[in-house]
């Protein structure tokens, strides 16, 4: 038993963190929100160079995976920097394609996903797909099977301006009449949980920095106990979500993954509420960068399984703890 990240895993996190810091990610997010995808695609390629998208792709299809622990580590950093785009969806699509009984579609589509040359989205648990207008590989999972969708419908805005929601066009190429889905759903939830945890950690960091600087009544507001205790509660929630996310990455059992998903997403959302409250009115503005994380925390909470759905999966009986 040694439940700690190793040096290589920590190095992966550090290198993503430095790269995303240097890339001025907030301005990339704002352009992506306006439908300008050029810098977002460039950032996507840089992320792919670190191997992130290859982590969900088996070696047989030119990937490095499956390596769910490294994937969780990477998604925490992607969340910490609020990176836009169908990140979870690309990983989920990779897991779904890799698990098809017929290796044909995987051979054809996975190498480009692993290399970051393609961007995938999929419509499955929701009636729309994330960023369907930006994605290059659109998958639709329907009761009749898994289709490579020919296009997308009109864009609906999301509560998170960096996310756009698009229905996928029906029809297209049938990739598999009866694809196995359990593993892909586990990847979707794990990646979302890790991303949400990163969002929560970033919100906490930014809020701690803010309350140390902001002065009222002649003192930093961070010296007031009411403020401290809200931040302490956010810290507790996030620090107990973290081992669930990493533990789920190790076991990949549906119960562990569902537990990580609900806990990380609720912790991130609770932290978002605290962050908004402690920033006051400035936090309620779209202009202030905090909004990039605040709105994402809400969106991720219900993506790929609402809290209620995840709790039901925890209770469903395959627990091994």
């Amino acid at each position, binding site marked *: 038993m040694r439940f700690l990240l190793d040096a290589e895993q920590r190095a992966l996190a550090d290198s993503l963190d430095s790269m995303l810091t240097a890339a001025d990610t907030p301005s990339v997010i704002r352009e992506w929100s306006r439908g300008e995808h050029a810098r977002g695609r460039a950032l996507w390629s840089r992320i792919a160079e670190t191997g992130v998208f290859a982590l969900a792709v088996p070696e047989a299809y030119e990937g490095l995976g499956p390596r769910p622990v490294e994937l969780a580590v990477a998604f925490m950093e992607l969340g910490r920097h609020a990176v836009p785009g169908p990140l979870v969806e690309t990983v989920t699509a990779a897991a779904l394609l890799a698990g098809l009984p017929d290796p044909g579609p995987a051979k054809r589509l996975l190498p480009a996903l692993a290399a970051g040359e393609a961007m995938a989205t999929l419509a499955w648990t929701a009636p729309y797909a994330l960023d369907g207008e930006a994605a290059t590989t659109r998958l639709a999972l329907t009761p009749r099977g898994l289709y490579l969708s020919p296009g997308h419908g009109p864009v609906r805005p999301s509560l998170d301006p960096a996310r756009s929601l698009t229905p996928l066009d029906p029809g297209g190429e049938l990739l598999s009449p009866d694809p196995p889905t359990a593993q892909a759903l586990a990847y979707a939830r794990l990646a979302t949980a890790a991303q949400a945890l990163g969002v929560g950690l970033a919100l906490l960091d930014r809020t701690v920095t803010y309350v140390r600087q902001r002065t009222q009544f002649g003192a930093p507001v961070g010296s007031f106990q009411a403020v401290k*205790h809200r931040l302490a509660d956010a810290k507790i929630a996030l620090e107990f979500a973290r*081992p669930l996310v990493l533990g789920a990455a190790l076991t990949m059992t549906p119960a562990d993954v569902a537990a990580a998903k609900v806990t990380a997403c609720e912790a991130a959302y609770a932290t978002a509420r605290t962050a908004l409250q402690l920033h006051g009115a400035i936090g309620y503005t779209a202009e202030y960068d905090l909004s990039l994380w605040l709105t994402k925390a809400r969106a991720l909470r219900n993506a790929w399984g609402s809290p209620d759905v995840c709790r039901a999966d925890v209770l469903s009986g395959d627990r091994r703890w």
Partner: protein
Amino acid sequence: MDLTHSPADEEFRAEARAWLRAHVPPDPLPSLETAEGFAAHRMWEAELAADRWSVVNWPTAYGGRDATLVRWLLFEEEYWAAGAPGRVNQNGVSLLAPTLFEYGTREQRARVLPPMATGEVIWAQAWSEPEAGSDLASLRSRAVSTDGGWLLSGQKTWSSRAAFADRAFGLFRTAPDLPKPHQGLTYLMFDLRAPGVTVRPLARLDGKPAFAELFLDEVFVPDEDVIGEPGQGWRIAMSTAGNERGLMLRSPGRFLASADRLLNLWHTQGSPESARAGVADALIGARAYQLFTYAAASRFLDGESIGPESSLNKVFWSEYDIALHETALDLLAAEGEPADTDWSERYVFSLAGPLYAGTNEIQRDIIAERLLGLPKGRR
């Protein structure tokens, strides 16, 4: 990253499981907050100790098995899963013993630890005073130097287990009038039946005498019952408070077992929709606490200390424990009211969690100031 245990550790777990299966009493013992229950729990400690299961992580010389932290965690998982009784000597084992291992003399360890391991001597804590609760360093009880030892005078309160315990440990002021309140304090052990000690049991919410007030009037304590140097008591008490609060005050095994009991209760009651979230959260919280502890234990094995992170842990388990028992009582509906059930006993016990071992408000201050780096302010 690895959550699997070594074959040798799994063998240790299997040995513990087999012993517990053969020895755990089939029916719950009477409440350990009663005279009858206290005696029954003391006998259970002797039974554990006879086969060296009472303090597995201690050195064999003092009655333990030299078990690693990981094996202690595995033992605890098996212990609580087996439905074994509560530990009447928890104060001694989780607070005093680590202090003796770190600051005690060889003579003190040889004299104090073996009878603690067998339950022959049960320990109470004597920290709080009527005017010193969260602000413990402001305590006023005095120890005055005398020939061959010290004379203790003053009043201690909320002294857990003191109604029936044999001995107690705590902090006393040996050098008054120093500039700061935490200076001049000394860590002492004393006999609860020594001349000059009056124990007045206090009834907790359900009327059981779970703690007591101690009135001390020139109680003689020999020099050999001072732990560490006189005047160093605050540092000694706080260092073990940090370490032990972090990992050993409440083991994950306890909550994994409680969550399983709650799940069974939920199924017995027909799996009502109303309690679904509460039951799921109990299962998830136990898993989170287990994995959090495994991560902390892994860092500990790497030579890192636990420090202020133990405050995260304390707030988490104490609030978790109450929520779990509230869900159980709600599930029981009208049957949740009678006080003579295991669930109500555990519920009342859980309510004290956010109060002792440093209130949760003090813990949140520590988290904010020492983990998040926020400025100190008024308490």
